[in-house]
C-alpha cells in the first residue's frame, strides 16, 4: 500500500534548542497511527511541521507523493491535511455551523444553503446537530473538542491529525470521541492521533510511534512498543 | 550635512551615554512586553508621569534622582493595580493581545497625556540639581554631568535588574512565567501573582527612568510619543525577552540617533528609532539576542 505521508530526515530548531532531529516516518494510506512520547518530546512540533504551522529546518515532507515542505498551512489543508488543536480554537464570534462553513467555503468552495446542509450533516455525525446554531463561545469542553474534529472534517481531509482531542474528558466522553475517530477511519481517512490516555491510544492504533527528545525511539505494533524498555525509560526517566 | 572626526567622536560619546539611558527606559517595557506579553503602549506615558512626579517633588527642593527613588513604591503599586485590571478585564476574557487590549493601553496613554497637559500645560518643564548645567571636560570634548549621572544610574539599574532576573527566585519565576505557565503552577506559584509583581517592578523602574529623563532634558506631555518609538525599538532590537541585550540595543540606538543628529539635524534624528524599529521587524524580528 502506498504512503500517503512520507517524512524524511526531519529537523526543527528553536534558537539553540533542537526540537526534532532525524525523524523518518512513512504513513500508509488509511492507517491508524498513534503518536506517543513524554511532554516536550516533540510530538506537537512534529505535527505543526506536517500541518504547516511551522516550517521544518531540515528534511522533506511529502504528501501524496508531492513535496509540501515549502507550502503554507492553508495550501496544505486544501491538499488534504486537516488537524484539530490541543487547546480548542473555535471561531468564537460564529455559531457552530458557521465554524464549519469556513473550511467548507475555503477548501470545498461551497457556500450558502449548500454549505449549511453539509455542515449539518457533519454535525449530525459528531452528535452536535442540536448545537448547530449555538454560539461556539458557549460550548462545553467535550462539545468544543467535537466541534474541532467536525471543523477538521469539513475540510474533507485525507489525512486527519488529532492533537490530544480527548484530554480532560470523562471516560464516556473519551469513548464517544474515539468512536467518531474510528468511524472516520473506516470511511478511508488516515488518522494520526496524539494522545496521553493510554487505553484510548491502544484501542485506536494499529501502529504506534514513540518520540523522545525529538527523535523516534520506537515504531511498530502497539503491544511491542509499550513493552519496549526504551519507551518505559522515556516516560519514567532513568 | 556637517562632518568631522571630532564631531563624530563627540557624537559617539554622547550617543553611548544617551544609549545607557535609553536602555534604562526600555527595561520596564522589556519586562512588561517582552516577558509578560502585555501590549503596554502606555509604558512611555507612565515614564513621562515619572518625570513630572520628579518635577513636582523638585518644587519642594528634592533632587530629581531622590524623587525617582521616592516614587518607586507608588509606581510599583500602580503597576500592580494596572496589571490586575488588565488581567481581569482582558486576559481572563480571552481577548488579551487583541484589539481591545491594545486599544485600552492606547486610550490610557492618551488620557495620561491629556491630563498632563491639563495639569501642567504644554510647555516644557525641567528639573534643577547641582549636576545639571555643568559639563566634564575630557579629551577636549564637553560631556554634560547630567548625562553622566543618568548613564551611571542607568547602568546600575540594568545591572541590578539583570542580576535580579537571573539570580533571585522571584526573578527567575518571572522569567519562567513568560515561557511556561504550566510548569510554574506545578511548582505551587500563582502565575497571575507573579505577573502582577513583574508588572509592578516594570512600572517602578519607570519612576526612576522618568526622573532620569527630566535630568537629561526638559520634558513636555507629548514626549511619550517619541519614547514609544525609542522604547519599542530597543526592546525589538534586543530581542523580545532578552534583558542583557537591552543595554547593547540601547547603546546602538543612542549612537545611531546621535550620529544622525550631528550629520542631518534634529528633524531626522527623531525618525531614527522608528526607522530602526521597522528595519528590525522586517529583517530580524526576534532581535539581536532574542529566542
Amino acid at each position: 500500500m502506498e504512503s500517503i505521508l512520507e517524512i524524511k530526515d526531519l529537523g526543527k530548531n528553536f534558537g539553540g534548542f533542537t526540537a526534532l532531529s532525524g525523524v523518518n516516518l512513512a504513513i500508509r494510506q488509511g492507517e491508524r497511527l498513534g503518536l506517543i512520547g513524554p511532554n516536550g518530546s516533540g510530538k506537537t512540533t512534529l505535527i505543526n511541521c506536517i500541518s504547516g504551522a511551522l516550517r521544518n529546518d531540515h528534511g522533506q515532507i511529502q504528501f501524496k507523493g508531492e513535496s509540501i515542505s515549502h507550502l503554507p498551512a492553508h495550501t496544505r489543508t486544501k491538499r488534504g491535511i486537516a488537524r484539530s488543536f490541543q487547546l480548542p480554537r473555535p471561531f468564537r464570534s460564529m455559531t457552530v455551523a458557521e465554524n464549519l462553513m469556513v473550511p467548507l467555503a475555503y477548501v470545498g468552495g461551497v457556500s450558502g444553503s449548500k454549505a449549511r446542509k453539509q455542515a449539518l450533516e457533519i454535525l449530525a455525525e459528531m452528535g452536535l446537530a442540536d448545537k448547530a446554531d449555538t454560539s461556539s463561545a458557549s460550548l462545553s469542553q467535550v462539545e468544543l473538542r467535537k466541534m474541532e474534529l467536525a471543523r477538521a472534517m469539513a475540510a474533507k481531509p485525507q489525512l486527519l491529525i488529532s492533537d490530544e482531542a480527548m484530554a480532560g474528558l470523562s471516560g464516556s466522553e473519551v469513548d464517544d470521541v474515539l468512536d467518531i475517530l474510528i468511524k472516520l477511519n473506516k470511511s478511508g481517512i488516515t488518522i494520526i492521533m496524539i494522545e496521553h490516555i493510554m487505553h484510548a491510544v491502544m484501542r485506536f492504533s494499529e501502529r504506534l510511534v514513540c518520540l523522545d527528545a525529538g527523535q523516534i525511539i520506537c515504531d511498530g505494533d502497539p503491544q511491542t512498543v509499550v513493552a519496549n524498555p526504551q519507551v518505559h525509560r522515556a516516560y519514567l526517566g532513568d | 550635512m556637517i562632518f568631522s572626526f571630532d564631531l563624530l567622536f563627540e557624537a559617539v560619546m554622547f550617543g553611548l551615554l544617551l544609549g545607557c539611558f535609553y536602555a534604562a527606559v526600555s527595561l520596564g517595557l522589556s519586562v512588561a512586553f517582552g516577558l509578560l506579553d502585555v501590549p503596554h503602549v502606555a509604558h512611555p506615558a507612565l515614564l513621562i508621569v515619572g518625570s513630572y512626579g520628579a518635577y513636582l517633588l523638585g518644587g519642594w527642593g528634592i533632587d530629581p534622582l531622590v524623587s525617582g527613588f521616592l516614587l518607586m513604591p507608588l509606581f510599583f503599586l500602580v503597576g500592580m493595580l494596572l496589571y490586575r485590571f488588565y488581567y481581569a478585564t482582558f486576559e481572563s476574557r480571552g481577548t488579551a493581545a487583541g484589539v481591545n487590549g491594545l486599544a485600552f493601553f492606547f486610550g490610557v496613554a492618551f488620557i495620561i497625556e491629556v491630563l498632563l497637559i491639563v495639569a501642567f500645560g504644554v510647555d516644557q518643564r525641567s528639573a534643577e540639581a547641582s549636576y545639571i548645567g555643568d559639563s566634564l571636560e575630557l579629551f577636549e570634548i564637553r560631556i554634560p554631568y547630567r548625562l553622566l549621572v543618568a548613564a551611571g544610574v542607568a547602568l546600575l539599574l540594568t545591572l541590578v535588574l539583570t542580576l535580579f532576573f537571573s539570580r533571585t527566585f522571584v526573578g527567575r519565576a518571572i522569567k519562567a512565567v513568560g515561557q511556561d505557565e504550566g510548569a510554574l503552577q506545578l511548582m505551587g506559584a500563582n502565575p497571575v501573582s507573579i505577573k502582577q509583581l513583574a508588572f509592578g517592578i516594570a512600572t517602578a523602574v519607570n519612576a526612576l527612568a522618568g526622573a532620569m529623563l527630566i535630568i537629561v532634558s526638559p520634558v513636555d506631555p507629548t514626549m511619550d510619543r517619541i519614547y514609544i518609538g525609542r522604547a519599542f525599538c530597543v526592546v525589538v532590537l534586543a530581542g523580545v525577552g532578552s534583558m542583557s541585550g537591552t543595554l547593547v540595543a540601547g547603546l546602538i540606538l543612542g549612537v545611531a540617533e546621535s550620529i544622525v543628529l550631528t550629520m542631518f539635524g534634529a528633524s531626522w534624528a527623531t525618525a531614527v528609532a522608528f526607522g530602526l524599529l521597522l528595519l528590525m521587524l522586517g529583517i530580524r524580528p526576534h532581535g539581536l539576542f532574542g529566542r
Partner: protein
Amino acid sequence: MKYWIFSALAFIAAFGLALSGVNEYIFFAGFVVMQAIVLATAWNILGGYAGYVNFGVPGFVGVGAYTALSMHLLFHAPILVQIAAGAVMAGVLGLGVGMLTLRLRGVFFSIATIAVVFIVEAVVINSRFLGGATGIQLTRPTEVWLFGSYTRMLFVVMALMAVVAVSVARYIQNSHIGQGLRAVRDSEEAADCSGVPTLKLKLIACAVSGALIGVAGAPMPMYLSYVEPASTFNLHYAVIALAMPIIGGTAHWAGPLIGALILGTLQQIVTVTISSELNVLVVGLLLVIFVVAAPDGVIGLVKKWKASSK
C-alpha cells in the same frame, strides 16, 4: 437593495442641502462628520474585521493629504483625481506595512503603524516641495460645479466618499473575504488550518483600509486652503479613528457610522459648552470605558438589550 435605496437617498439629501441656502457653517461641520465616517469605516475594515489595530492613522491621512497636494501643485488636478491619487499612495503604504509585519504577531503591526507616522512626518518636514515644517498655503480653484461655494462642493464630495467607504465595508463584511477575516480575527491558526489564505486576506484588508484613510485625508489641503505637518499628522485622528468604531461596534459596517455620528455630535456639544481640551479628554475616556465595559459597542449593547427583553 434596501441599503442602496437608503444610501442614494442620503446622498441626494446631502446634495440637496448643498444646493440650498442654509448657513455655510453647516458644511464646514458636515465635512468633518463625513470625514469622520470615512475614517472610522476605513479603520474598522482592518481593526474590526481582521483584528489588527492601526495606530498610525495620522500617517495615512498625511499621505493622502500630501499626495493630493502634490497632484494639485504639479498638475492642478481636479479634486476627484487628487483623492484617487491619495487613495492609491495610502493603499500602497498600507500594503507595505502589512508585508513588513503581518507575518509577526498583531502587536508588532500596531507598533509599526506608529513608526509610520513619525517617518512620514519626518519626510514631509524635510521636503521643501511639500512645504516642510511651516506648510503651504493654497488658493482654491474657482469652479464649484453647481454649488454656491467650494466648501459646499467639498462637503458633497466627502459625502460621496462616505457612501463609497460604507459600501465597501458592507461588501467586504458580507462577502467571502469578510468570512475569512472573521476567522482570522477569531483564531488565525485555526483559520490557516481551515484553508483560509490568512496572509493574503490581511494584506487586502491593509491595502483597502489604508486607501480609504487616504481618501479621508486627501481633501484636507483644499478644505483648509492650507496644509502643514503639525495639524495633518495630529494624534487626534488616531484616537477618533479608534474610538468611533469601538463606541459604535466593530463587528458591523453600521458600527463606525453610529460611532462617528455619536462622537461627532458629542464633540460639537462639548467644544461649544465646555472647552476643546476637555473634548479631547472625553474622547479618550469614552474609548477606554467602552473597551472595558462595552467592547461590542452600541450595537452590542442594543443586541444584548433586545435579547434580554424577550
